[in-house]
C-alpha cells in the first residue's frame, strides 16, 4: 500500500470528524445571567418548561433516576416519582422560584436499581440538569456520588441509609434506618418491657444499618441482642424463621421486603411465636393485609417510619392529598416523594434569593440551610444541613400499627419521638461501618 493511500485513508475520516467536532457540547464553565438577574450555568433555561403554566417564566430542569420497570423497588419508586411531579407542579402553580418554573418530567430515567445503568443514565442527563430530584437506592446513589461531589450537583436520595448524613451533596430528609431502629428498640423496652431483641435483616446498607442501630440500642438498654442475616426471596426465609422460633426473642426488628416479611411473620406465628415485630418503613406494603399472613401481622407487627403515613393530619399531608387527587392505590411512596422534595425547594428558594442558581450556588445554599419548613410533615428543627453530622442529623421517628381502615394500612400509635439511645448517640459516620 502506497503512502498516498494511507494518507487518503486517514484524511477522509479525519476531515469528517473535524467537521462534526462542533457537535461536542462545550462544558461552559462560565455562568451566564438568567431571569431576574440570577447567575445560572447548567439545567436552567430562559425558555419556558415543556409543560409550563406561565410561559413567561424560565425553566429549571431536575433529573430523576429511579427504579421504574424491572427492579425490586418499582412499587415504591413509581409513587415517589408521581408525588414529586405533583409537588413541583404545586410549586409552579404558586409562582415558581426566582422567575423560573421547575420541570421534573423531561429527564426521568430508569436505573433498574443497577449501579452501572444508573451511572450511564446519569451521564446522559447530567449536562441538562441543575440538580437531581430523586436518586433511588443506596448502591445506585453510591455509584454516582464521586461525580456528584466533583460536579457540585445536589441530589435528593430515595433511601434512608445513614451514609447520607455525612455527605454534603446529598439532601436527605428525616432520620435514617439506624436511628429509626434505635427508637424502635427504645420504644419496645419502655412500652413493652422486652428483654431480648433480634435483628432479622438483609445484608447491605439497608438491613445492616438498621441492625447496627438495634444493636447499639440493645447494648445501651442492657437487653440481649442477636443478629440474623437473611437473603431476599420468599422461599429463602426458612433459616430466619427457624432462628426466631428457636431463640424466642421478645422483639424482632425486621428490615426486609414486604413479601419476605409476611412470610417470616406469618410462619413464625404459625409455629407458635408470640413475640413482637417492628419493621422499618420499606418493610411495609398495604397489600400484606390481604395476604395469608394478615392475622399474624395484625397481632404481632408494628411499623416504624421516618414520618407519618398518607392519612396524617398535617398541613403538608393535606396539601399532598389534594395535589395528587385520586390515586389508584394509596401508598406511602407518595408521602415519601412529597416529603423528600421540601429541602430542595427550600434550597432553590434560598439560591434564588442569593441570585445564584448555578450548581455551586445551589450547593452553597444547601450548606447554609438551618431549617426547612416541611409544613408539619416533619416537626420543627428538621432539615438542618449546616454543620457537623452529629448536629444536623434528624433523630425522630414514629411507630404505627396495622389497621384495615387506614389509607395505607397503618395508623400512628406513637407520634414522632426521639428515644434516649438516639438522643445520646454520637453520629460521625454511617452506623454500619
Amino acid at each position, binding site marked *: 500500500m502506497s503512502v498516498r493511500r494511507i494518507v487518503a485513508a486517514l484524511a477522509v475520516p479525519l476531515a469528517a470528524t473535524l467537521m462534526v467536532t462542533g457537535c461536542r457540547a462545550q462544558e461552559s464553565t462560565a455562568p451566564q445571567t438568567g431571569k431576574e438577574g440570577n447567575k445560572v450555568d447548567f439545567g436552567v433555561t430562559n425558555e419556558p418548561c415543556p409543560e409550563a403554566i406561565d410561559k413567561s417564566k424560565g425553566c429549571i430542569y431536575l433529573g430523576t433516576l429511579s427504579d421504574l420497570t424491572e427492579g425490586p423497588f418499582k*412499587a415504591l419508586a413509581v409513587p415517589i416519582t408521581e408525588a414529586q411531579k405533583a409537588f413541583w407542579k404545586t410549586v409552579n402553580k404558586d409562582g415558581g422560584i426566582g422567575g423560573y418554573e421547575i420541570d421534573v418530567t423531561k429527564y426521568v430515567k430508569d436505573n433498574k436499581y443497577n449501579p452501572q445503568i444508573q451511572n450511564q443514565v446519569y451521564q446522559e442527563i447530567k449536562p441538562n440538569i441543575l440538580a437531581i430530584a430523586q436518586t433511588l437506592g443506596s448502591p445506585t446513589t453510591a455509584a454516582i456520588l464521586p461525580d456528584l461531589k466533583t460536579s457540585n450537583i445536589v441530589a435528593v436520595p430515595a433511601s434512608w441509609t445513614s451514609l447520607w448524613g455525612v455527605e454534603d451533596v446529598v439532601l436527605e430528609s428525616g432520620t435514617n434506618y439506624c436511628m429509626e431502629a434505635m427508637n424502635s428498640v427504645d420504644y419496645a423496652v419502655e412500652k413493652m418491657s422486652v428483654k431480648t431483641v433480634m435483628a432479622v435483616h438483609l445484608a447491605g446498607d439497608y438491613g445492616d444499618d438498621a441492625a447496627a442501630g438495634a444493636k447499639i440500642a440493645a447494648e445501651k438498654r442492657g437487653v440481649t441482642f442477636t443478629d440474623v442475616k437473611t437473603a431476599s426471596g*420468599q422461599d429463602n426465609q426458612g433459616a*430466619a424463621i427457624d432462628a426466631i422460633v428457636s431463640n424466642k426473642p421478645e422483639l424482632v426488628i425486621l428490615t426486609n421486603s414486604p*413479601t419476605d416479611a409476611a412470610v417470616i411473620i406469618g410462619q413464625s406465628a*404459625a409455629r407458635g411465636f408470640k413475640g413482637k415485630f417492628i419493621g422499618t418503613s420499606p418493610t411495609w406494603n398495604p397489600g400484606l393485609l390481604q395476604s395469608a*399472613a394478615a392475622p399474624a401481622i395484625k397481632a404481632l407487627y408494628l411499623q416504624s417510619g421516618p414520618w407519618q403515613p398518607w392519612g396524617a393530619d398535617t398541613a403538608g399531608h393535606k396539601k399532598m392529598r389534594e395535589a395528587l387527587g385520586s390515586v389508584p392505590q394509596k401508598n406511602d411512596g407518595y408521602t415519601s416523594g412529597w416529603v423528600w422534595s421540601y429541602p430542595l425547594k427550600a434550597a432553590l428558594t434560598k439560591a434564588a434569593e442569593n441570585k445564584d442558581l448555578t450548581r455551586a450556588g445551589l450547593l452553597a445554599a444547601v450548606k447554609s440551610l438551618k431549617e426547612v419548613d416541611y409544613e408539619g410533615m416533619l416537626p420543627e428543627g428538621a432539615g438542618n444541613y449546616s454543620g457537623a453530622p452529629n448536629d444536623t442529623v434528624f433523630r425522630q421517628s414514629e411507630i404505627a400499627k396495622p389497621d384495615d381502615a387506614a389509607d395505607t394500612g397503618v395508623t400512628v400509635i406513637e407520634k414522632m419521638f426521639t428515644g434516649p439511645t438516639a438522643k445520646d448517640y454520637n453520629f460521625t459516620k454511617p452506623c454500619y461501618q
Partner: protein
Amino acid sequence: MSELVQSLVRGLGNGSVYALLAFGFVIIFKSMGVISFAQPAFMLAGAVIVTYLVTGMNFFVAVLVAAVLVALLGMGVERAVLRPMIGKPVFVISIITLGVDVVIRVVVNAYIGLDVRPLHDPWQLDTVNLFGTEVQERYLAMFITTMVLVAILFVFFRYSRMGLAMRAAAFDQEVALAQGVSVGSVFSLSWAIAGALAAVAGVFVSTGAGVDQQLWIIALKALPVIILGGLDSLGGAVVAGLIVGVIESLVGTYGSGIAPWLGGEFALVTPYLVMMIVLMVRPYGLFGTREVVRI
C-alpha cells in the same frame, strides 16, 4: 424431631415447585434441544393471572384457567418466535427466549401494580398435624399436586398417541418426521405443557405472602435441578427437584448452627454445590442419557 419433620416437609414442598419448573425445562429441552429462559416469565404470568381471576371465581378454577392461558401464551411464543429458528444453533435460540422473558416480564410487572397482590388460596398458613408435628398444609398441597400432575404426564407420555409422538420426536426428530409425526405440534405441545406447569409453580410459590415482582428469581433454581437430574430425564427432574428442595431446607435449618461462618445465605448456593459434586461423579447427572461418543 419436630424441627426435622417440619424442615423435611418444607423441603419437599419447595422441592415440588422446583420439580414442576424443571419438568417444563426438560420437556422443552427434549423436544427442541434448547434451555428456555422464558420460564420465569411464564411462572410470574401464571401467578398474576390467578390473583386477578380469583376475585371472580373459585381458586382452583382460577388456577386451571391461568394454566390454560399461560399454556396458550407458551404456544404463541413458540409459534411466532421459535419455530422460525428451527435448525439454528441452540444457544442463539436460548438467547431469544431471554428476550421473550424480558418482554413478558415487563408487561406482567405492569399488572402487578404498587401493592403486593394477594392470592387468596385456600391453604393460607394453616397447619395440619402430621405424625405429631404441626406442618403447613400448603407444603403438603404442593407435594401432592406435583405428584399427581407428574403421574398424569407420565401416563400421557406412556399411553397416548401424542405422548408416543413426543417421545419419538425426542428420540430422533427426522425419523419421527418420516414416520408421520407432526414435529411442529410436538413443539407446540411441549411449550404448552411447560407454560402450564410454570403457571402452577408460580401459584404455589406465591402462597404464603402473595405476588411481588421478585418472584421470578425462584425459577432460576430449576437450572441446577435439571442438570442434577440429567437434562433429558423427566423422572430425574422430579427426583432432583425434591432432593434440592430438601437439602436447601435442611441447610437452612441446621447450617447456621453447625457452621455459622457460612452466613445466612449459604442455603442459596447449596443446589449448585450439590450439582457440581454429583457431576464430578456422573457427568450426565443422576439420570441423564450418556452421550454415545463415536469418532
